């Protein structure tokens, strides 16, 4: 049991009767004989942080890659902001993706570009036209949000792991998305940096009112960021509830995650 860090506040409560922005309904996905997702279902409401908790290799990353359309699903439907991802053509998918941010596990910063160019990349590639002044302002704003305004002309290789994670988050934020998908945001970071990232996720939620799906197996991250927790076990949504509810559960499969 970890001692509760005193200054960290509990996640902000989600407004109760909010509209549903993301629906995952009965999704199945298999790689060869390995059935990763089996009839997985999940709803995410506006302004809500949902953490998908599961073991490594349980198919958590596959889930959010299906949501953003990087992988096709075998069965079931995924509706993002009211649109069925599977039926969209290239253009419509790109338009949708401009409203959905994705924070990659390995950050996926472009090695050959400076921080500024990394941030400008999605901005320009999404056919969003801004004057150079506006672009500069947006880049500066996004970097301020993650507290790294001074790194604007550095190359990703010059940055530490935590800084890179923040830059990657800034690159996601610059489009001011409605939904952000976090793929294991705290994995590979030291505990202090990990807490800073958790803090940042919550700040983003409060400042921009975004909905988030956070993939994680880091219990501190779960505790600090989740409004609701979905437990992914053997490809199914095994349990769904607040951190406190699940922690209080006596189900051994659930308890396994919460006992340290």
């Amino acid at each position, binding site marked *: 049991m970890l001692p509760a860090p005193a200054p960290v506040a509990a996640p902000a409560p989600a407004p109760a009767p909010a509209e549903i922005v993301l629906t995952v309904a009965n999704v199945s996905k298999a790689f060869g004989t390995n059935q990763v997702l089996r009839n997985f279902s999940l709803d995410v409401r506006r302004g809500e942080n949902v953490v998908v908790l599961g073991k490594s290799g349980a198919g958590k990353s596959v889930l959010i890659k299906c949501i953003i359309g990087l992988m096709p699903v075998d069965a079931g439907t995924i509706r993002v902001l009211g649109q069925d991802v599977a039926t969209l053509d290239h253009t419509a998918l790109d338009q949708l993706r401009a409203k959905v941010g994705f924070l990659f596990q390995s950050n996926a910063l472009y090695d*050959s*570009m*400076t921080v500024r*160019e990394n941030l*400008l*990349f999605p901005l*320009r*590639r999404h056919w969003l036209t801004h004057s150079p002044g506006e672009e500069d302002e947006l880049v500066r704003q996004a970097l301020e949000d993650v507290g790294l305004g001074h790194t604007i002309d550095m190359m990703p290789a010059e940055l530490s792991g935590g800084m890179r994670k923040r830059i990657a988050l800034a690159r996601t934020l610059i489009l001011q998305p409605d939904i952000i998908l976090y793929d294991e945001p705290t994995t590979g970071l030291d505990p202090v940096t990990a807490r800073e990232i958790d803090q940042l996720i919550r700040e983003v939620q409060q400042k921009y009112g975004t909905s988030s799906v956070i993939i994680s197996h880091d219990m501190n991250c779960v505790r600090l960021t989740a409004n609701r927790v979905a437990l992914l076990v053997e490809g199914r949504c095994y349990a769904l509830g607040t951190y406190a509810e699940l922690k209080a559960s006596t189900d051994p499969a659930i308890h396994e995650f919460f006992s340290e």
Partner: protein
Amino acid sequence: MPQRPASTYFRLGLFVLVGLGCLVAVLFMLGRKQNLFGSSLEVQADFRNVSGLLTGNNVRLGGISVGTVKDIRIVNDSTVRVGLSLDRAVQPYVKKNAIASIGTDGLVGNTIINLKAVPTPAPAIESGDVLRTTAPLALDAMLGTLNVSNKNLVGITKDLREITHKLNSSDAFWQLLSDQRLALEMHRSLQNLAAATALLQGSATDMQQLTHGLRQGRGPAGYLLTDTAFAGRMRHATRQLASTSDTLAHTLAGLKRQIQTPNGPLNTLLADTAMGRNLRQSLRNVELGTAGFSQNMDALKHNFLLRGYFRKQARKDKTRTAAP
């Protein structure tokens, strides 16, 4: 999106341009060699045998490539028509009567077509002309010639053998050859001949001197031959002379006739005073004629034959009087 400095594009552009430039340069050189770009002149030549000529082989004039073989096609069983593409620039140098022949470039090189000029003048070649050709120097043709030569040689040697045989069997010939006196006389004749030629040479020298002087305009004859104005006057004089002598001859003829007639001049002369007066008149005429003739001759002398002489004489006199 990464920002690229403008110099990147500049260097890339330079790189590509230089590369393409090299390619274009080579292609251009090849094109010029194969006459693809320059304006060309199409002419034809019919051969019996082209000895393995290929399209693209060179056409040479005086050893310089002036074009290429454009196409080769068989017209009938003994004629191959070769289309030549000549450089427009050499048009003035290739005449209509030029002769095309098949040759090789070196001993084992490519087959080529040689254009040979003919000394007789002809207009420059034009598009579509058909050139005359000569048969190539083929080995079988050479062997054929050699065969004829051999046959001739056989005849010649046979004749030669007969001649030598005859010579051997002829006593007179050998006597002639072995006669001592003959040699001696021959020697003398030759000596005489030498003397004669020496004399001849002397005369020739004189002659040469004479003609030399003549050429220089020296001496009366020389003057005669060189002065053109004089020639005119001479002509005039001789004409006068001729007319005078004509008159004389006429008169004399009349005289003779009068003497020969029955009422001949004699009695007339004796009996008739009028006749005598007539005769006198005639004689005066004769006198006048001869006076004119003499005058003419004088003028002739003054004019040419003796003028130079007189002058020389006058100069000599002057120097003689001045000397003492």
